[in-house]
């Protein structure tokens, strides 16, 4: 017992120190979102804690009219449209990736479709720097009229996250015993019926986790939207960045408010599927 004390204190000190380092950036942003403008970045002074709490940053950035709203007068565009774009592109991109990827995953898991190498070819897709793939796609998108449209963004998001769907769903389908589909077929189902009525319900949890995981990936994208959109389909992360380079000086508080809004969906979904995060980010190689 006596020996255990220094050890315990040491562990707690280490956790506190690391926790401080990892927690501070988020703490700073969270409090920044509630600071009034004169506390954002006053020269030679620092507000570790908001002196006067305010929600005007949120009302500003969302374009809600208020007495201090600079966006209502100075800027016609609030963050609402970009957020809407992000929701549509990430949501529909996820659905499309699922629609294509779930079938491929089942084919690979159940029938070894495409041979042993197909899954690894799909994995290699993830290794290429996205910008290297985006350059030729940029020609194509401009040529096809898909550049700066939500449709174009949805297709790209689906293509980029499709490997994750295949690898994740493959690992989930492998957990469903082969007997499930065989029994369904004996009971008179077609292969498709067996898939939809017997196998898919068994992998329901995995499907939900995959959907949320892929949504997080799409929602987090910055590079694709930066290159592939301009005005009509700008997503929220790109909008956040455009505020940074704005001529009107720094808008830390407003940006922090938007940042907190952007963090919310991934944080909630991520904690909800915490069990599957490792599996997702390691392409199903580690199943815990």
């Amino acid at each position: 017992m006596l020996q255990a004390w220094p050890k315990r204190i040491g562990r707690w000190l280490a956790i506190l120190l690391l926790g401080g380092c990892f927690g501070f950036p988020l703490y700073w942003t969270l409090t920044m979102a509630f600071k009034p403008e004169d506390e954002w970045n006053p020269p030679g002074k620092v507000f570790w804690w908001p002196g006067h709490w305010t929600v005007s940053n949120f009302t500003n950035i969302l374009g809600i009219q208020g007495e201090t709203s600079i966006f209502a007068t100075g800027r016609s565009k609030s963050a609402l449209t970009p957020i809407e774009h992000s929701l549509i592109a990430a949501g529909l991109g996820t659905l499309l990736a699922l629609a294509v990827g779930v079938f491929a995953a089942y084919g690979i898991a159940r029938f070894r479709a495409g041979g042993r190498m197909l899954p690894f070819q799909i994995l290699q897709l993830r290794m290429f720097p996205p910008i290297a793939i985006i350059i030729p796609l940029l020609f194509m998108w401009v040529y096809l009229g898909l550049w700066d449209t939500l449709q174009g963004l949805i297709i790209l998001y689906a293509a980029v996250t499709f490997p994750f769907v295949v690898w994740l769903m493959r690992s989930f389908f492998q957990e469903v015993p082969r007997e499930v589909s065989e029994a369904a077929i004996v009971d008179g189902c077609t292969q498709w019926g067996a898939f939809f009525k017997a196998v898919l319900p068994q992998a329901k949890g995995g499907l939900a986790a995959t959907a949320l995981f892929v949504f997080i990936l799409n929602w987090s994208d910055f590079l694709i939207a930066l290159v592939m959109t301009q005005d009509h389909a700008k997503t929220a992360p790109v909008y956040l960045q455009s505020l940074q380079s704005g001529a009107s000086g720094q808008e830390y508080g407003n940006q922090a408010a938007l940042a907190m809004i952007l963090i919310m969906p991934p944080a909630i979904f991520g904690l909800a599927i915490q069990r599957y995060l490792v599996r997702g980010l390691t392409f199903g190689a580690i199943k815990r």
Partner: protein
Amino acid sequence: MEAHTTELPVRQAPKRRLPDLGGRSEGAVSRLLIAPGQLLMLFIVAFPAAVAIYIGFTEWTPTSGDNVWGAYHYWHWFDGYWEALRSGGFWHSVWLTLLITVVCVGVEFLLGFLLALLFLKEFRGRGLLTLFFLLPMMVVPAVSGFIFFMLFQVDGPVNQGLTAILPGGVIHVHWLDDPSLAKWSVMTVDIWQWTPLMFLILLSGLVALPEDQMNQARILGASFWHQFRYLILPMMKPIILIALIIRAIETFKLFDSAFLLTGGGPGDATQTISVYLYRQVIINARWGYASAVAIIILIFVSAAGAFAVRPIEQAQEETLEGLVGGEEQVAAQRVEEAIAAEARI
């Protein structure tokens, strides 16, 4: 459990044509299942790759008057490739990216392992604290870029905090404007964001280590270092390898934090490969040259990828105390189940 009797013949003769009423044969079904995926890959990989190879042999830019299809007017064979291989800017970004990858993945691994060891034993608030340490991983990368942009300002909280803690005068470190410091600031963002993933992967590996052996070693008087060196490390090897590879792949693609923090600057101080390509395309509008560079990168990554894929492939097949498992293990399980089921009847 009446299904068992009807199920058995199917298992004994899996090759026999299944009595599918109106369904299609397995071969046709499996081809149909992966067809949309293959189509998407063709659309997103094969066609663009062809375009990139074509454009890479030319000096074409969108401002040159011709459209993409007329790019052959600017044909110059491998000149773009030679230019890239001889250009200092290209190699600078390659070495910078490799440096960032090695440093970031190394630090993330060490910090992640330390955290995982700290969280191995049960203590009060462990679950909640684990969630707390996972948070940075969920932050949208554009947001984490913005956060550190705020923190690293010359009169920002990092300098102000250091001024308060350290003795001496006011500290004015130019985290983002100093060419030799900027890359370390960019690395900080990556380390902050992705150490949690290392932590999570390694913790899940540590938790699954066989407790009996660990206790045995402890009772036999093995020091912590020896337990670590001869027990934990060898057993964790597959997982560590996967974690390192996955992070290395992702870090090699680093763009967001460099672009958001410094825009690749000052000068080319934080110009990673991705930022280099971005600048060539968007700022210099040298599409032909950028395509050539992209092809070089793709070849390089494919070659490296052939090595990187193997451990992941192995992990899918290896059985490590049920921790890492793939098809083979599931198949083996299935065989066991099958034998057990048959023995019952």
